[in-house]
């Protein structure tokens, strides 16, 4: 939302410059969401609304526990409920807290054309600096998780900030604080990874989830929001969590090679014009042209209806 850490950027959208990097002592942070401990109480959703002061207009009941129906400029985190039937025919209720994954290699930041509208702090948090946002919607195209939402009221893009304002003053994100079962944890990425490894082991050996695992997808360089999944081999059963998210090759191409090549091409065309001007010069009407035109006009207009002929 706002810029709380003025120096510690590791990435800034739409810049060709190196972000200031002198202060370099911050640990990489991560939020760990243990889906196997989640009871779907939505305390995290309420805490997010409370801390960020987000009040979406009241919607209507759609026949599902999910409420509201989708992420929104005023809904930065959302519990998604999936009823999954396993091979044995047993029902599993898979509840995933959806929201920004804070990718190490953020597709939104790569796609963003507005300088400084999306930044990544050294602790890994990807943040939208609203005052620089131009509302073009490119971040939606860049995101492999379909997270950002553009407000139709103020033409700005919004998503989870990982409570960058709280983290900046050594507090945990609001959702973490509110979670009653300890399903959401916050700490250094290393600590969270270690903790997750223990939990995964527990799920495998004591709970019988042989495919339990940590969701920290390498396709986007890992994420600063990670999930412990009972079925890490099938992330898509958790309300379409992508199996191997990457920045789309279309976005890579659009934001990659064609940018410099096009600028060079346009400059070359302009320079070619200038060179032609210097070598060949302007094409001016010569006195001979005027005379020839005159002769032709005279030849045609002197007799009333002249027969067709060439001169």
């Amino acid at each position, binding site marked *: 939302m706002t810029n709380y850490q003025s120096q510690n950027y590791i990435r800034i959208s739409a810049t060709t410059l190196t972000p200031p990097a002198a202060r370099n002592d911050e640990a990489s942070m991560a939020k760990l969401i243990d889906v196997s401990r989640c009871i779907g109480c939505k305390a995290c959703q309420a805490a997010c609304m409370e801390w960020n002061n987000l009040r979406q207009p009241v919607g209507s009941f759609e026949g599902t526990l999910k409420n509201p129906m989708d992420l929104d400029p005023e809904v930065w985190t959302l519990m998604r409920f999936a009823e999954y039937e396993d091979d044995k025919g047993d029902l599993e209720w898979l509840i995933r807290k959806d929201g920004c994954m804070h990718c190490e290699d953020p597709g939104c930041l790569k796609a963003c054309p507005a*300088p400084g509208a999306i930044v990544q702090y050294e602790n890994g948090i990807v943040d939208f600096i609203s005052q620089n946002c*131009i509302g073009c919607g*490119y971040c*939606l195209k860049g995101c492999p998780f379909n997270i950002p939402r553009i407000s139709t009221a103020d033409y700005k893009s919004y998503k989870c900030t990982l409570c960058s304002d709280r983290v900046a003053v050594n507090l945990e994100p609001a959702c973490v604080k509110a979670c009653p079962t300890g399903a959401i944890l916050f700490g250094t990425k290393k600590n969270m990874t270690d903790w997750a490894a223990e939990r995964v082991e527990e799920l495998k050996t004591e709970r019988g989830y042989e495919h339990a695992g940590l969701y920290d997808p390498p396709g986007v360089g890992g994420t600063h929001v990670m999930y412990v999944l009972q079925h890490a081999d099938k992330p898509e059963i958790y309300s379409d969590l992508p199996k191997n998210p990457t920045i789309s090759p279309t976005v890579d191409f659009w934001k990659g090679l064609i940018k410099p090549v096009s600028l060079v*091409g*346009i400059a070359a065309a*302009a320079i070619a014009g200038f060179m032609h001007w210097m070598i*060949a010069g302007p094409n001016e009407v010569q006195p001979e042209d*005027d005379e020839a*035109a005159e002769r032709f006009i005279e030849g045609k207009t002197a007799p009333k209806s002249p027969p067709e002929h060439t001169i």
Partner: protein
Amino acid sequence: MTRPRGTFIRADLATRINHWITALCFVLLTLSGLSMFHPLLYWMSAFFGSGQWAAQIHPWIGIVLFVSYAGLVIQLWRDNPWAKDDLRWMMSIRQVLANEEEGVPEVGRFNAGQKFVLWAMVILIPILLLTGLIAWQHYFSSWTSIPTQRLALLIHSLCAIAVILVWITHVYAAIWIRGSMRSMTQGYVTPGWAWRHHRKWFRSLVTTGSPGPRPNPVETRDEQPRAGE
């Protein structure tokens, strides 16, 4: 219009106004579009007040350009048919570029280069409009899937670069061929200019007694040009 005696109308008032509306839109679209294309050109958004203004006004200008260009095409397409001579003219492009137009096939109202500009834009502008609508966040983002929008933006960027290159050619040609600029501002050209650059057009105007921009209909001929506007 104060057209000196003996000169020919190259583009009538409607065409000229139509042309310059299109041109203004094109320049504004290039500035706002390039500002969103490369960070080094983001400063171009300052012409619109801010990046947000540039981004939000870009699609609206695009619609105006599309309508305006359609008007231009309606006025000019009949004088831009691709003919065999155009290929020969293109083959002699070296002579044309060297300002030696004698011996190059005679040209009607428009030469092959001008026809190329018209038809290239006829192809590119609708693609730009369509892909632009798909990518228009505020109104149409929910109409298509995100992968479709990604592809649309890629195609939009590539076509935009192509159209800018065509435009640079068009602008340079207007600077290079002296007298062209006046033909699109005040609307007239001298007989010498017409003789030098568009001899076939010149002959057709003189023989039919037309002041331009199109020859008068000739009753006895088979291949009648349509009535001039």
